[in-house]
């Protein structure tokens, strides 16, 4: 395979992973490569990133694809020979292996403690080589596993161990408080996890082709990750994205309202402005239009399957609360609980989410989602929340465990409100399968598929 073919395959893989790479950017990247040369891998990475990736959120995807197509080393490479290595090879027995795992854990903890990226990478390569191989798999199946590697390294106890070391401190480092130490340790072990995963992808890509891996194992960029199958690290990342997102949305809205301004003619100011052009009204002045603000009532399903989705939507709505006159929020599982008070202006999003999760218990009586019951309870207890100026927003997957969906209650609520929407975090293919009552509800309320941050942003923008 020539270098050019490789490069074109690389760009194709980027496009498939969702990065909009245009032909002119492709040409730029080749020009950049020509002037940089291929000697320095980091320079190549920087050059390609500068020409091909134009959005911060796409960078992790780019890095993953780059590691596949331009791997740092081949096979197990020739890592710096460590003194223990021959030792481990000569003891193939079970004891030798667990010793070896212990040594690796020791060395990795030390590297993470010192923040030494380079030796950590070397250790990851060693670790995957020694622990990640799955022998005896039929050809055609992937024979490397990040799960195996991380399981044997016991990543979760690594966090504790690292945190303890951070809390103790040494002559170079001040001891850290417990919370901070745990936080730092978690971040660093997450980084280790990512390294192991990317190393495993590299090893598999050597056996298969990079194209194969790029198609099957790469994760979409964070704003495309579906709420329902987000991992813990994705969730943290999404939470960090909420406020920038809200800020962008707010400035976009302000701009659009700006463009639509120009209400009725302001006679006095027009005449005043015409003075400078000798009494000829060259430019007309208009009165600003009164911005229209809605009242919002949000009703969220917070049962396990959709809790993430509900909390992100709530956070986003609250980040945008100056766009609404009033926001009231309710959570439900099979009972309804008002959470409006949990959102305080200027509060920390992480804390807010924790408090929300805590209050979810109050929204549940038997712990099984029951939309019909929740809607009825809402109408009984909080009928005043929905009035002729209110927009009603229901969030949930409409999976009601085969109970009576109480369509009549929803109809009354919809009739009482000015607008109503239903956001469903499931793909519309799955609506109305199993215990989902999506179609019944969708007949009354416009139901919108809202699976990731992009769709959520679009929706919130449209209703404002």
């Amino acid at each position, binding site marked *: 395979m020539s270098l050019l073919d490789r490069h074109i395959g690389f760009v194709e893989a980027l496009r498939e992973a969702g990065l909009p790479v245009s032909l002119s950017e492709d040409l730029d990247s080749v020009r950049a490569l020509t*002037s*940089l040369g291929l000697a320095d891998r980091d320079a190549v990475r920087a050059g390609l990133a*500068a020409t091909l990736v134009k959005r911060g959120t796409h960078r992790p995807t780019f890095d993953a694809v780059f590691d596949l197509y331009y791997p740092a080393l081949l096979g197990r490479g020739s890592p710096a020979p460590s003194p223990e290595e021959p030792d481990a090879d000569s003891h193939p027995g079970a004891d030798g292996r667990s010793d070896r795992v212990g040594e690796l854990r020791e060395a990795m903890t030390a590297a993470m403690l010192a923040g030494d990226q380079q030796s950590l990478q070397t250790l990851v390569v060693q670790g995957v080589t020694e622990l990640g191989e799955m022998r005896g798999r039929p050809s055609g199946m992937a024979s490397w596993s990040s799960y195996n590697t991380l399981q044997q390294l016991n990543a979760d106890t690594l966090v504790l161990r690292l945190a303890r070391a951070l809390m103790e401190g040494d002559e170079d480092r*001040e*001891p850290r408080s417990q919370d901070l130490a745990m936080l730092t340790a978690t971040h660093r072990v997450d980084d280790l996890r990512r390294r192991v995963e990317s190393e495993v992808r590299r090893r598999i890509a050597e056996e298969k082709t990079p194209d194969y891996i790029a198609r099957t194992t790469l994760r979409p960029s964070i704003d495309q990750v579906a709420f329902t199958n987000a991992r813990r690290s994705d969730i943290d990342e999404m939470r960090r994205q909420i406020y920038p997102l809200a800020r962008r949305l707010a*400035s976009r809205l302000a701009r659009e309202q700006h463009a639509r301004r120009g209400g009725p003619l302001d006679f006095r100011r027009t005449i005043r402005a015409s003075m400078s052009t000798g009494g000829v009204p060259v430019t007309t002045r208009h009165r600003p239009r009164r911005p229209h603000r809605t009242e919002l009532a949000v009703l969220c399903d917070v049962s396990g399957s959709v809790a993430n989705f509900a909390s992100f939507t709530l956070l986003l709505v609250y980040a945008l609360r100056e766009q609404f006159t009033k926001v009231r929020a309710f959570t439900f599982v099979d009972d309804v609980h008002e959470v409006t008070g949990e959102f305080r202006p200027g509060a920390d999003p992480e804390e807010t989410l924790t408090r929300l999760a805590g209050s979810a218990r109050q929204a549940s009586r038997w712990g099984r989602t029951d939309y019909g019951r929740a809607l009825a309870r809402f109408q009984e207890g909080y009928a005043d929340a929905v009035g002729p100026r209110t927009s009603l927003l229901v969030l949930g997957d409409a999976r009601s465990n085969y109970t009576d969906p109480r369509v009549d209650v929803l109809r009354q609520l919809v009739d009482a409100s000015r607008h109503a929407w239903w956001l469903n975090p499931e793909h519309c293919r799955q609506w109305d399968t199993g215990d989902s009552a999506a179609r019944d509800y969708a007949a009354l309320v416009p139901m919108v598929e809202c699976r990731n941050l992009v769709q959520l942003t679009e929706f919130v923008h449209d209703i404002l």
Partner: protein
Amino acid sequence: MSWFESPKDAAAQLSGAGYLTDAATATTTYLSGTLEKPLLVEGPAGVGKTELAKAVSRATGALLVRLQCYEGLDEARALYEWNYRKQLLRIQATGPDASWDSLHDDIFTDEFLLTRPLLTAIRRDEPTVLLVDEVDKTDVEVEGLLLEVLSDFQVTIPELGTVTAVRRPFVVLTSNATRELSEALKRRCLFLHLDYPDAAREKEIVLSQVPGVADRLAARLVDTVGQLRELELKKAPSIAESVDWARTLVALEVDDLDDEAVAATLGVVLKHASDQDKALAALRGHGSR
């Protein structure tokens, strides 16, 4: 002419100008000079986006032309404008006997042209660095204007004709990502995401920017700022804040960053009340270990 010889050269020259870069920044800056493409720098506030442009101008001895963007910026402020007052004076001064043709030719000349930053940068034949600051603050129409200027480095003035750059300026655009820039503009630029530096580089930056700060204090400070960044804060402290903090501590003649000093000066680093509470709660526990 090329701006930098190689990525290494770019790093060396920039650090000579007091701007310590990492490899990716140096490489991208070098590429921007070599490919003659504008450099779009994005990142959190205070990581040195604007400073990068200033450093390039200092390092290469080029003049810095700055266009500060804001909402409502228009062609007349960004590109050029006719000095109509002076034109009016000229018309009144010629008297009634001058012919219209000669007068018309006379008042649309260089003498009556007010050049604004974009045109200034294009017309200069000396090395120039054009800084378009906070480009995300402008309206979409200005972006369209930038497209013509930045892709062909030419400006069309109906009365004078097309002005083409004699010498392409080094263009840096900065953005805080308050809105997505158009794909067309991004396509024409090289993209660099500046992020918080690693601890070693940040320490070097603090040491080089703040004279009189002790090595130990700088290390301690950078470590604390690093910890603060790991907390989820509304506005994480950036390099500018670290440098300010170091300056504050030097001015107060504090030579150890103990709990008391942190509590007293945290306002320099964190600008939200909820952030300060959270940070203090997390940092406390130092003593009660």
